[in-house]
C-alpha cells in the first residue's frame, strides 16, 4: 500500500513532458514512418525499378541507405522467428534434434552468395512482376547469413538451462508456452542478442552483394547502397564509391547506437549470474527511453499484449511418460524415424547425383575441386598473414587498457563494414599498376574478415589476468619465452574464435573477391569463388550447385579437421579462470 502515497506526485509530474519525451517520441514516429515507406516501395511493381533508374547523385544516397537498412531489419525479424521455432523444436524433441542440428551445421557452411542464384530465381517466380520477389531474395540472403548461428545460440542455451530453474517451472506447473516465455527465451537472450549483433555485422556484406545481381539473363537492381556501388563501378566513378563508403559508415554507426547498444544493455538483465556486475553495458538511447515518460505510455499497450501472450493457457508440459512399456515402443519408433530419415537422405543423394550426371561430367567435378584447392590455399595463406600481422598488434593494444578501449569499437566496426564496398578502390590500383590479379585479388577476401582476428585478440589480451602478467614480469620472462609461454597460450581461445569467423567469412567473400570489375575491365583469378560467380552470371545452375557442394565440403572439412580440434584444445587446456 506504500505505492499509493507516491501516486499523486507521479501523476502530476507525468503531465509535463520532459525533453526526453520529445526525443523519444520523434524516434518512435520516425520508425513508424520508415515502416510505412518500406511497405509502399516494396509492393511496387517491378517496372517501377526501371522507371526510376538509379542515380549516382549523392542526394539519393540517404534513401538508398534507408532501403538497405529496412532489408536488414526485415531479415533480423525473420531470423528471430525462425530461431524461436527451429531451436525450440530441436531442443524439445529428441527425434527432431537428431536431424535438425546436423542440418543446421551444414547450412552454416553453405556459401550464402552461391545460394543467392536460386533464391533470386525462386522469389522472382513466386511474386512475378512485383519488387517484392527481388526484395525477398535479398532479405533471404541476409537471413541466411544470420539465422543459423542465432539458432545455434538459442538451442545451446535451451540445452544448458540450470536444472533448478527447470525444476521450478515444473514444480509450479508452468505450461510449455509459459515456460518458453519465462525461462527459455530470457535465458537465451544475452547469447541471442550477441549473436544477432555478430550476424548483423556479417549481414551488411551480403545485403550489399545481393542488391545488384545478375543471374543468367535476369538482372535485378534493387535501390540500395549495394546497387549504388555497382553502378559506380560500371560508370567508373570513384567519387561515388567514396560517398557510398561514407553512407555505409553512417548507417553502421546509427545501427549500432540506435539498435544494438540498447539491446545489449537491456539484455544484460537476463544474464544468469548470481552476483551483480559492476561493468554492465550502457546505452544512451536506452537511458533516453527509460527516462522518457512517454515511453511508459507507449509501452503500456505492448506490456499488456505481452502479458496476454505469455499468460495464454496452452497445454501443460507433458508429465514423465510411464516407463517400461513406453521405452520399448519408443525404441521401435526411433528405428522407424531413423529409417525415414535415412531413406530421405538416400533419395536426396540419388536425385543429386542424377542431376549432376545428366548435366555435367566428371571432368567438371575435377575442375571444381582443383579450384577449391586453390581457394583453400588462398584462405590458408591469408589467414597466416593476417595472424602474423594482427596478433602482435592486437596483443600490443590489448595490454594497454586505455588504448584498447578506443581501438576495440573501431575494430568491431571495421569487421561490420562490408568490404565489398571498398573493393573498387583496390581494383583501380590493380588495374592502374597492372598488378598480377592472381595474387593481388586475394587480399580482398580477407579485407573485411581480418578484423575479427584483431578484435578477438584485443579482447583476449585485455582479459589476460594481471597477476599472471606480474608473475611473468617478476620472473624476468621476456622475448620469445614471453610470447610462447605467457601471452599466446593466454589469448589462444580468443584467437581461435576470431580465426574461425575470419576463415568462414573469407570463403564466402571469395565469391565476390575472385572476380572484380572496374568499368569494362574484368579481373578474374581461378578459384572456387570465381567458379561460382561465373556460373551465376552465365545462369549455369548445375555448375552453381556443384560449386556450392564443393565449397560446403571444403568448409565443413576444415571446420571438423582444423578449427574444432583447435577450439576444443583451447577451451580445455588454455581457458583461464
Amino acid at each position, binding site marked *: 500500500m*506504500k505505492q499509493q502515497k507516491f501516486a499523486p506526485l507521479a501523476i502530476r509530474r507525468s503531465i509535463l513532458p520532459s525533453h526526453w519525451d520529445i526525443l523519444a517520441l520523434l524516434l518512435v514516429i520516425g520508425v513508424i514512418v520508415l515502416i510505412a515507406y518500406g511497405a509502399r516501395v516494396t509492393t511496387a511493381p517491378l517496372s517501377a525499378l526501371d522507371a526510376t533508374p538509379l542515380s549516382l547523385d549523392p542526394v539519393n544516397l540517404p534513401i538508398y541507405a534507408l532501403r538497405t537498412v529496412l532489408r536488414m531489419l526485415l531479415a533480423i525479424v525473420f531470423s528471430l522467428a525462425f530461431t524461436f521455432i527451429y531451436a525450440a523444436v530441436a531442443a524439445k524433441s529428441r527425434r527432431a534434434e537428431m536431424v535438425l542440428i546436423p542440418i543446421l551445421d551444414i547450412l552454416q557452411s553453405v556459401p550464402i552468395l552461391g545460394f543467392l542464384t536460386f533464391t533470386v530465381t525462386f522469389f522472382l517466380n513466386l511474386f512475378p512482376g512485383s519488387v517484392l520477389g527481388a526484395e525477398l531474395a535479398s532479405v533471404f540472403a541476409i537471413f541466411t547469413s544470420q539465422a543459423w548461428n542465432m539458432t545455434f545460440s538459442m538451442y545451446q542455451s535451451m540445452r544448458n538451462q*540450470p536444472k*533448478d*530453474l527447470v*525444476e*521450478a517451472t*515444473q*514444480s*509450479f*506447473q*508452468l*505450461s510449455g508456452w*509459459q515456460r518458453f516465455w*519465462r*525461462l527459455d527465451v*530470457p535465458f537465451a*537472450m544475452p547469447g541471442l542478442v550477441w549473436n544477432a549483433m555478430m550476424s548483423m555485422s556479417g549481414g551488411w556484406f551480403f545485403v550489399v552483394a545481393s542488391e545488384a545481381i545478375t543471374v543468367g539473363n535476369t538482372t535485378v537492381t534493387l535501390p540500395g547502397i549495394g546497387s549504388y556501388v555497382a553502378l559506380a563501378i560500371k560508370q567508373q566513378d570513384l567519387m561515388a564509391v567514396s560517398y557510398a563508403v561514407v553512407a555505409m559508415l553512417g548507417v553502421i554507426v546509427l545501427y549500432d547506437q540506435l539498435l544494438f547498444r540498447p539491446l545489449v544493455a537491456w539484455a544484460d*538483465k*537476463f*544474464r*544468469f*549470474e*548470481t*552476483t*551483480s556486475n559492476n561493468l554492465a553495458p550502457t546505452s544512451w538511447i536506452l537511458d533516453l527511453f527509460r527516462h522518457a515518460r512517454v515511453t511508459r505510455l507507449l509501452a503500456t499497450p505492448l506490456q499488456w499484449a505481452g*502479458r496476454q501472450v505469455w*499468460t495464454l*493457457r496452452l497445454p501443460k508440459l507433458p*508429465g*514423465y511418460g*510411464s*516407463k517400461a512399456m513406453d521405452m520399448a515402443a519408443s525404441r521401435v519408433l526411433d528405428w522407424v524415424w531413423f529409417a525415414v530419415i535415412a531413406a530421405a537422405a538416400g533419395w536426396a543423394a540419388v536425385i543429386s547425383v542424377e542431376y549432376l550426371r545428366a548435366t555435367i561430367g566428371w571432368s567438371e567435378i575435377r575442375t571444381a575441386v582443383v579450384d577449391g584447392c586453390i581457394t583453400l590455399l588462398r584462405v590458408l595463406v591469408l589467414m597466416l598473414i593476417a595472424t602474423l600481422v594482427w596478433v602482435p598488434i592486437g596483443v600490443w593494444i590489448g595490454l594497454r587498457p586505455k588504448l584498447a578501449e578506443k581501438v576495440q569499437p573501431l575494430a568491431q566496426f571495421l569487421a561490420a563494414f562490408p568490404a565489398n564496398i571498398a573493393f573498387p578502390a583496390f581494383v583501380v590500383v590493380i588495374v592502374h599498376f597492372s598488378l598480377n590479379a592472381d595474387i593481388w585479388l586475394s587480399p580482398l577476401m580477407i579485407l573485411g574478415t581480418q578484423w575479427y582476428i584483431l578484435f578477438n585478440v584485443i579482447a583476449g589480451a585485455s582479459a589476460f589476468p594481471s597477476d599472471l602478467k606480474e608473475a611473468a614480469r617478476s620472473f624476468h620472462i621476456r622475448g620469445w619465452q614471453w610470447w610462447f609461454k605467457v601471452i599466446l597460450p593466454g589469448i589462444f581461445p580468443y584467437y581461435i574464435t576470431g580465426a574461425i569467423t575470419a576463415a568462414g567469412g573469407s570463403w564466402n567473400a571469395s565469391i565476390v573477391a575472385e572476380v572484380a570489375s572496374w568499368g569494362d575491365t574484368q579481373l578474374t583469378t581461378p578459384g572456387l569463388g570465381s567458379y561460382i560467380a561465373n556460373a551465376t552470371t552465365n545462369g549455369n545452375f548445375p555448375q552453381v550447385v556443384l560449386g556450392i557442394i564443393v565449397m560446403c565440403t571444403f568448409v565443413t572439412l576444415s571446420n571438423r579437421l582444423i578449427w574444432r580440434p583447435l577450439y576444443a584444445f583451447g577451451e580445455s*587446456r588454455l581457458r583461464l579462470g
Partner: protein
Amino acid sequence: MLDHLSKTPLIDISQVSRSFPKANGSDVVVLENVDLTIKEGEIVGLLGRSGSGKSTLLRIIAGLLAPSSGDARCRGATIDGPPVGISMVFQSFALFPWLTVLQNVELGLEAKGVARVERRALALAAIDLIGLDGFENAYPKELSGGMRQRVGFARALVVHPDLLLMDEPFSALDVLTAETLRTDMIDLWIEGRLPIKSVLMVTHNIEEAVLMCDRILVFSSNPGRVARELKLDLPHPRNRLDPMFRQLVDSIYALMTQRAEPRSTALDGIPGTGMGMVLEPVSTNILSGLIEALAGAPYHGRADLPVLAGALQLEADELFHLGEALQLLRFAQLSEGDVMLTDAGTRFAHLETDARKKLFAEHLVTYVPFMGLIRRVLDERPTHTAPAARFRNELEDYMTGSRADETLKTIVSWARYGELFAYDERTEMFSLENPE
C-alpha cells in the same frame, strides 16, 4: 467428512525404489523400499549423507521424478507429475534472475491462472509475511543470499500449498543467515501463520534437523534406505544448548557412524568395497591435516565427531566423508560418534613428508583394490603405460558414469600424492614414469 479427510495422509509412500541406469546398461539403485507417510501438522526431516537418496525421494514426492517401483500417493491420488498443493524451496533458490522479486513470487499464481488483481494481493501478502517489504521491485542479483532464499520461501508459500518441500534450503547460506531464517520459519510455523499444513525437509545438517523437525528419518547410503525413524517431542522453540538437544544430536551422530562400522571389521563381501569401492574426491592435504589435528592436543588420537565438526568448522557431512576416507585407508576408525586414529594413523602424523608419502602409498595399494589393480597392470606391461579408459570401463561395471569419474579422479590425485603412478591428462594415460 472432515474426519475422512484428516485420515487420508497428505503423502503416502510405500515400498518406493528408484534406480538410475549405469553406463553399461544395468541399474544403480539409489533408493530402496522406502515407506513414508506425512500427516497434517508436522515437520518431517529426511536426514542422510549425500548419495543416500533423500533428494531423490523429495523429487519423487514433488512429481519431478517417477519412482522405478512402489507407490507414491498425494492425498490418495498417484503422483504422476507435480501435484497441486505441493510447492518447493530449492537449495540454490532457483529464482529467475530476469524477474523482479514480485514477479518471481507471482510465478506460481500466474501458472495457475489467478487473475491479476488477486495475484498481486496474494503476492504482496506473502512478501509481507516473509519480511521482504520494500524489495518488491528488486532483482534477485541485488539481494543477499538470505534475502534470496526468503523470495524462494515467499514464492513457495504464495500458492498456499498443503505441503512445503524444502531441499536443503539453508545449506547455501552462511551460518548466521541460515540460523536467522530457520528461527523465523519456526516462529511463523508455531504461530500458525504459514499457509501450509505440513513441511518435508531434506538436510544433511544434524543440528538443523533436531532444531526444526517433529520427526526425523535417518537414511543410510548405497542404496538409500530408511535406517531409523525418530520422533522428537521437544517443544518449540528449541535450544541448542539444552542437554536433551545435545543428547539427541549425539545419538544421531552415533547412529550415522554406526552404519559405517561393518566396513572396518569385515574385509570381504561388503557392499561398496572391493573393486566397486566408490571413492569421494577428498584432498590428501585435508586428510593429512585431519590426521595431524587428531594426533595433537586436545584429542590425542580420539575425538567426538560433533565436537570436532564444531572445532574445524566442518559440516557433519564433510566430516563423515573425511572420516570414511581415513577409515578406508586404515588411518582411523569411526564408531559410536567418535573417530580414533589407528597405529598407522599416529605413525603418519609424526613422519616427514617423504616417509608419509611412502606409508600412504603402501596403504593405498593394500586397502584400495583398484589402486592395486592399476599398479599391477602398469608393472606387467612392457611399456608401463595404460589408457585410463580401460579402468574407467571397469569401474562402470560397478557404478554410474559420474561416480566412476569421481572415483577415477580421486585415484589419480591420491596416487599422485603417494607417487604410485603418473597420469597424463592430455593423453589420458597412466604410466609409471614419474618426472623426477
